[in-house]
């Protein structure tokens, strides 16, 4: 007869407090030891201590369905979370696109133009040649032994591939790496951070991830234990944050950016929201700042950044700095400064501020979304906390090697004197100047529309115009059971084939309406987009003008 070793559940903080009832379920706050709870204890079977209250969570609703997994019995956090960037409007667009193939004449447009997502290479942007040369050589290392390779690849890409492969044990790009990422690549990234900021970076602070998003999820998982844990997020925000907070069962504490002052971030607003959350019993754990902003595109002034750093230090908040658009700045009067640089130049070190800085290979001028590469630089945490971050990273073993290589290339690109430097710079500047131009062209066009105001895109990849929707339109939207901005966006899609994301997907000041449009379609498509949008808007206003 086998014996199970059963260990008692330990009571932890607010164990007996009930959760706020969720649809169909109540749950108790029990803390359980799971099977491999601690390496020095014998394996245990999880054993909940039953409290007196009833829970209708147990049982698989077998009376209502013979299947165990149905919509009713899914994790409610999954049901609750939303992600508009690939939400309803995009689904409609995809169906239209399919139909367009067979029913070309049924539509007033002949293609769908996806302006909903920051996915540059899907709209014709070319990857940086040098980066792809290095990746190809690292993919198929036998190429490096062939003399013919010198005729097809630049000499510095060959050198760089050798250098990278020497940093990978056994030159095995198909092997799981260290869970934080290959050490030599982290060294290159740390050197790149130091060159950018003028302050040292430690490769051991770097955790490489499949894109920046998994790093954000990791931090949310670490910081959030219950809905009593709050994360301050900008409104409007990139909905990864709201979705991740919902998935981890926390609370989003909104702070409103000020549209009238170019989406400015006021410390007084931060303070106000923080105090209000605390008065409701929420422990605010972190402040998320997206700089340059998404969807709003503003680049923070350095003075503003110093205030934010001080605020986090005083209020003991972890600063989550989403800096994935750091290479996308389009205006001469603004410059990107990393929060790490700002904090260090204020004299703040490891003991003063907990800072997590996120970077990605998806944006910038490289736009390598599909490769899934990125990292977070974690500073100011004690070693026991860092061990937990490492542990979380290790469960997934490691991020994809190709993405890791690309991240190191992005942070240490060709230098003057390198063979590929001239062509690299030409490609980079070509892309960035084109982005700046497109940002300006679209912004001007939007500002010409009746009832529309649009702040300039100082950085990032988006425009976020404000539409003053007439009352009639709002009423029509309500009748169609749709948010007014979603109503507008659906009409826009059906009339023009242009896909944008309604502002409600990012949240906005109640009673205001926006949509997010990327600046990414190729330059030659922009005039047509402007024309179609202008025409549509005019007819929309003609229909709904009060």
């Amino acid at each position, binding site marked *: 007869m086998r014996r199970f070793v059963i260990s008692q559940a330990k009571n932890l903080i607010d164990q007996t407090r009930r959760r706020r009832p969720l649809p169909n379920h109540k749950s108790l706050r029990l803390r359980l030891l799971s099977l491999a709870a601690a390496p020095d204890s014998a394996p245990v079977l999880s054993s909940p201590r039953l409290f007196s209250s009833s829970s209708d969570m147990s049982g698989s609703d077998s009376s209502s369905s013979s299947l165990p997994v149905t919509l009713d019995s899914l994790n409610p956090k*999954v049901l609750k*979370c939303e992600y508009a960037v690939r939400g309803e409007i995009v689904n409609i667009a995809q169906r239209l696109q399919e139909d367009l193939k067979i029913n070309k004449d049924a539509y007033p447009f002949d293609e769908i133009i996806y302006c909903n997502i920051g996915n540059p290479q899907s709209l014709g942007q070319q990857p940086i040649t040098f980066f792809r040369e290095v990746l*190809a050589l690292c993919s198929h290392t036998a190429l490096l032994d062939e003399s013919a390779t010198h005729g097809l690849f630049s000499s510095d890409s060959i050198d760089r591939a050798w250098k990278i492969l020497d940093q990978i044990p056994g030159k*095995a790009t*198909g092997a799981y790496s260290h869970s934080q990422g290959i050490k030599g690549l982290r060294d290159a990234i740390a050197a790149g951070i130091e060159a950018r900021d003028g302050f040292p970076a430690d490769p051991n602070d770097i955790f490489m991830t499949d894109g920046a998003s998994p790093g954000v999820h990791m931090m949310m998982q670490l910081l959030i*234990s219950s809905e009593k844990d709050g994360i301050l997020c900008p409104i409007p925000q990139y909905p990864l944050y709201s979705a991740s907070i919902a998935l981890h069962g926390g609370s989003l504490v909104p702070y409103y950016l000020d549209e009238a002052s170019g989406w400015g971030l006021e410390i007084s607003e931060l303070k106000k929201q923080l105090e209000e959350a605390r008065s409701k019993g929420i422990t605010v*754990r972190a402040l998320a700042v997206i700089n340059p902003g998404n969807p709003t595109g503003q680049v923070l002034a350095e003075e503003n950044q110093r205030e934010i750093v001080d605020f986090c230090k005083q209020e003991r908040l972890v600063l989550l700095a989403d800096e994935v658009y750091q290479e996308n700045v389009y205006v001469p009067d603004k410059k990107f400064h990393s929060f790490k640089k700002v904090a260090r130049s204020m004299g703040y070190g490891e003991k003063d501020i907990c800072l997590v800085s996120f970077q990605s290979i998806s944006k910038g001028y490289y736009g390598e979304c599909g490769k899934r590469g990125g990292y977070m630089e974690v500073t100011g945490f004690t070693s026991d906390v860092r061990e937990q971050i490492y542990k979380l990273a290790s469960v*997934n073993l490691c991020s994809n090697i190709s993405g890791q290589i690309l991240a190191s290339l992005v942070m240490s690109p060709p230098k003057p004197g390198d063979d590929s430097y001239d062509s690299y710079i030409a490609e980079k500047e070509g892309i960035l100047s084109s982005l700046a131009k497109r940002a300006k062209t679209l912004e001007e066009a939007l500002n010409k529309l009746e009832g529309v105001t649009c702040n300039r895109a100082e950085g990032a990849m988006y425009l976020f115009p404000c539409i003053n929707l007439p009352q009639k339109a709002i009423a029509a939207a309500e009748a169609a059971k749709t948010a007014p901005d979603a109503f507008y966006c659906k009409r826009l899609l059906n009339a023009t084939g242009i896909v944008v994301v309604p502002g409600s997907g990012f949240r906005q000041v109640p009673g205001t309406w926006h949509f997010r449009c990327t600046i990414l379609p190729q330059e030659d498509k922009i005039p047509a987009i402007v024309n179609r949008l202008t025409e549509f808007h005019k007819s929309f206003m003609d229909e709904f003008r009060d």
Partner: protein
Amino acid sequence: MALEYESLNENVKKCQYAVRGELYLRASELQKEGKKIIFTNVGNPHALGQKPLTFPRQVVALCQAPFLLDHPNVGMLFPADAIARAKHYLSLTSGGLGAYSDSRGLPGVRKEVAEFIQRRDGYPSDPELIFLTDGASKGVMQILNCVIRGERDGILVPVPQYPLYSATISLLGGSLVPYYLDESENWGLDVNNLRQSVAQARSQGISVRAMVIINPGNPTGQCLSEANLREILRFCYSEKLVLLGDEVYQQNIYQDERPFISSKKVLMDMGSPFSKEVQLVSFHTVSKGYWGECGQRGGYFEMTNIPPRVVEEIYKVASIALSPNVSAQIFMGLMVSPPKPGDISYDQFARESKGILESLRRRARIMTDGFNSCKNVVCNFTEGAMYSFPQIRLPPGALQAAKQAGKVPDVFYCLKLLEATGISTVPGSGFGQKEGVFHLRTTILPAEEEMPEIMDSFKKFNDEFMTQYENSFGYSRM
């Protein structure tokens, strides 16, 4: 301090993942100090000298740098079928490797996966029910995240198990309901054990929602028989459990008595009502098999009998991560539709694949026999997967010494093994085992020519260890 250990999410603190835990960290430290370490802690073939298959690397290199395809001399470096295949996969993307794909993965690749499943099982497979993921682990986490609502939701997990399951259940705040595999029956699964585990869990108020099987097993290596699979599916039907079929080692089969049969095939063979009602999610990867492309992070899951609205929710969550990495999706496409007889690259591909599989089969034998030649070690044969999981009888003296050192006995043994020989294993306690029984997990992946020396090194250490600890407790020998 803004963030202190005390205020971290408890679920994070509780979760453990021994594969890269204490032993691995110690091994890494020793490696930094200059000691030669043989890492057998994780199924990571390329790290131990296995070469990548040539054809997929050629195809993906061309996809990484599509401008090569326009170069007049590209044929000097790449065979024509690799060039054609690269063009094919690039045409399936919406902008090459650098564009986010559909959040479920490229439709064209999912179609190829569906065709593979159909060829393998003889039943149709719907690409809309196949989601590509950044490694199978991400897929497992996504599905468990849907199923686990709270600590009262239990997931049946084999013991010993691959600790992704225990770690994920812990992180999600659910309950792990263990069912013990029987070491004396070749790690067989007895349905009575399952029933007992479920009854026990239910008596404690746990709602058992899902059952995990790992076939071939990890760390145990056993291949489930068709009869066993039928029993399991019947059990899931009557107990209303969704079956999670971790089939990542389906290419790694080292005996002929029990070839791999997918859970889906058996389910479909069983016909109504089972085939229409049992909910199943099957997982596969490019990391294992004879491909071993761990670093690409490529995997998929296929859903059977999952309601459309649930599929939508899973899609919604997948979309937050935007898309799985596109290079790995191409690897997956290549894995499910490899070179065929008549293709230019077929002979080389077949030779490379066969070579790897046959060598793995030989290494499985060498290792099992080597362990069994030690008198205090009993080792079931590695029927499949990539691991050997010998049982080590530890004398009371060793148990005592372990206790004094503050270590679980198998951790103690494995640390000593590491320090003496450089062999880095994972203690059995990381996978779960019967109380008082100790194992270690090693891989069968070290190069074939190094195997004899590694086994000798182990034997020497083990004999010395036994001598030391058998005698140190002499007066109380029972």
